[in-house]
């Protein structure tokens, strides 16, 4: 079954469109990456799916459910988003417990305490963090909370917008491992936006390269690992990211 289907999706922010005619099918359980440089429109695609960029035309379906242009409560239960900046995406005056319980309250789901404690364990946070405020957490811990928040309603699809680019490499490794484990355990589908091709090689099965609001190439991750893209721009991006040469790792 198709987890995310985009048909001829054109998105704007009130003026000229910034994404043009994007068509994509992402299978259930797949991990798919959108890569490209700033301004290529990759984050805008995620925002449109999440309902944060309502000025679009075309069609968006998630697990067979068509997405409308308005906020949609049912949609929130199947599809959630994790944002780039764990410093900006958590409410500074709410404890971890408040943040995680809020989606439950909105959707009228009971057993707050149990679910919060279970979710903290699932994302690898000790229960002593439950009543802390964001400023009492490190960047990696905050991103764990943001992932936990996205998973509270047990969605099947996660939209990940540069989930590790604000983190140190060692913390990035922890969060990438966590995301990989959660996908396996919960059979999640990921659509991830990133500019880091190394992360794609570790996390994803397929990727699409975007430029100037259009997809220029869709490829299996093997093509990325071997550096055999068809499109000239994809190859350029690959070369700028250091290509296959990981001189340090290779020498060690």
């Amino acid at each position, binding site marked *: 079954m198709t987890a995310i289907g985009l048909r001829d999706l054109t998105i704007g922010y009130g003026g000229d469109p910034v994404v043009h005619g994007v068509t994509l099918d992402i299978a259930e359980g797949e991990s798919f990456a959108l890569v490209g440089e700033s301004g290529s429109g990759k984050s805008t695609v995620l925002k449109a799916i999440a309902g944060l960029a309502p000025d679009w035309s075309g069609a968006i379906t998630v697990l067979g459910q068509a997405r409308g242009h308005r906020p949609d409560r049912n949609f929130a239960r199947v599809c959630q988003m994790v944002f780039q900046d764990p410093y900006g995406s958590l409410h500074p005056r709410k404890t971890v417990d408040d943040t995680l319980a809020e989606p439950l309250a909105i959707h009228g789901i009971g057993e707050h305490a149990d679910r919060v404690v279970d979710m903290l364990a699932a994302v690898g946070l000790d229960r002593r963090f439950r009543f802390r405020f964001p400023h009492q957490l490190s960047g990696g811990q905050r991103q764990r909370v943001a992932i936990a928040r996205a998973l509270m309603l047990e969605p099947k699809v996660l939209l990940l917008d540069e989930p590790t680019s604000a983190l*140190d*490499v060692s913390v990035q*490794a922890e969060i990438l*491992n966590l995301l990989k484990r959660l996908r396996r355990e919960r059979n999640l589908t990921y659509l991830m936006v990133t500019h880091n091709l190394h992360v794609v090689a570790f996390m994803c099965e397929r990727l699409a390269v975007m430029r100037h609001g259009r997809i220029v190439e869709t490829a299996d991750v093997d093509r990325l*690992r071997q550096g055999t893209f068809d499109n000239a721009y994809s190859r350029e991006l690959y070369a*700028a*990211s250091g290509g296959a040469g990981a001189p*340090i790792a290779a020498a060690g």
Partner: protein
Amino acid sequence: MTEHLLELENLRVSFPTRDGPAEVVSGVSLTLGRERLGIVGESGSGKSLTGRAILRLVRPPGKMSVERLVFAGQDLMALGERGMRAIRGARISMVMQDPKFSLNPVMTVGEQIAEALRVHGARLSRQAMRRRVVSMLEQVRINDPERVAGFYPHEVSGGMGQRIMIAMMLIPEPDLLIADEPTSALDVSVQAQVLDLIDDLIARNGMGLILISHDLELVARYCDRIIVMNAGRIVEECPADRLGEATHPYTRGLIDAVPRMNETREELPVLDRSAWSGT
């Protein structure tokens, strides 16, 4: 070469906390010739503070102490604020991470670059100044420099903004450039351009460079020598091309934690933080 451009011995930086002063840089020593030195480490390792301390720019309530801080034969600790101002920018320059917050939003690009030159004592006619600015913009490979000189910072892209910053930092012809994450706010393709540019200008002017970054691979590519910092200390020092043979477990941990382009590992190794950071 016998004389070092910079000598730093036993640098310590601490911040007061409720439980007494917390040392963030604990006894860093290094010497630098006219070469490219990389300082790598994660957030909180003290790498940026080390860079700032060289310019004596540790903000209060932070306190720095150092046994020896000598730049081109001159004892920087003996200088007053006024003396330091003559060093900063003119002889040691610093490029910061984000051009968006480092450029003055209400001044044109050309005026800002000219100002950088003027405050360091250049007395040039209006026309000569204009020529210097335009030629500097040309050097940082900005197309149509005459036009760009009239732009305000919000009218230029991130990569261009960073190149303008570099133009500003290099126009007084300093001997040492400290670049603190100069490209982390930029796209990969622009990153390479900006670093190539810095590299080129360093080589041409025979300057020293300290490149501070969290990105091992990048530092290995652009530096001659690398220092790895963790929790305020230098844990490893090696030539850049020997980084693959690094032995300290923290350095190895950092190298292994980065996903590779031809990645096949199911899981990435994770650092055991408790072993080194003592927290």
